């Protein structure tokens, strides 16, 4: 079962089971801070394992907001390249993570 928010990209790969949450990318398993919704989303995705036909899409009923601003931002092609530089340096979220990882590697 694939649980995600980019329906066209998921369908291009033709997975056997899709659960689609129509949210901005980065929130495939629910809205930040809403534990009840997060649990309901994953529960719904797991229910899809019972599917008996392939390439079915289970579209979840949740809506991110009352307007479409986030969709317009997602398709704004004038926003440039938002990706980070590509090199082989591990990108720790926090400096403390790097120190702890390096300590773990030498332990």
């Amino acid at each position, binding site marked *: *079962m*694939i*649980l*995600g928010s*980019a329906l*066209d*990209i998921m369908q*291009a*790969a*033709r997975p*056997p089971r899709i659960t*689609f949450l*129509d949210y*901005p*990318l*980065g*929130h*495939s*398993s*629910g*809205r*930040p*801070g809403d*534990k009840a919704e*997060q*649990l309901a*989303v*994953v*529960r719904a*995705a*797991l229910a899809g*394992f019972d599917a*008996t036909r*392939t*390439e079915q899409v289970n579209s979840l009923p949740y809506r991110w907001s009352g307007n479409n601003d986030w*969709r317009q931002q*997602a*398709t704004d*092609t004038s*926003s*440039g*390249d*938002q*990706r*980070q530089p*590509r*090199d*082989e*340096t*591990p*990108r*720790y*979220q*926090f400096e403390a*993570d*790097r120190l*702890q*990882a390096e300590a*773990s*590697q030498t332990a």
Partner: protein
Amino acid sequence: MTVKYIDAITDRYNQLGYDAYRWFHADSPPAFAAMKKPLKDAKLGMLGTSGAYAVGQIAYHYKDDTSIRAISKHTQDRDLRFAHITENYLPGGRSDPNCIFPLASLRQLESEGVVGELADEMLSCMGGVYSQRRVRDEMLPAVIEKFEAQKVDAVLFVPM
């Protein structure tokens, strides 16, 4: 109307003068397998592509990093971190990991008996790898080997 990410990203990179982005399009139907046992009796694994790592693990780099991480199913959200080349999609997960790497939700569903059992470790990768060959030849064999060793019956795949 759902967001057409393939069209939008292709247009964006065209405007930037980049070479055409080569999306993966499957040319055959997926292998479909009906569940051999109900989920309440099954062992479930997970793969997330959001670049999750646990404190103490090495973070991902952003130049086609095909490595994977195995994260204990007992890891708490406060010990989950994220590194992904599209960091612009990470603020939600970095503030609340369960919205993109739903380990806490899966643990809850395991405790309720919805899932028979979770694999001991959830798998993670950094999905921003721009070589289909390296995903196919390097990343996927490692993922499959791990799932086979875990003897999982089903997998939840959570792309970002």
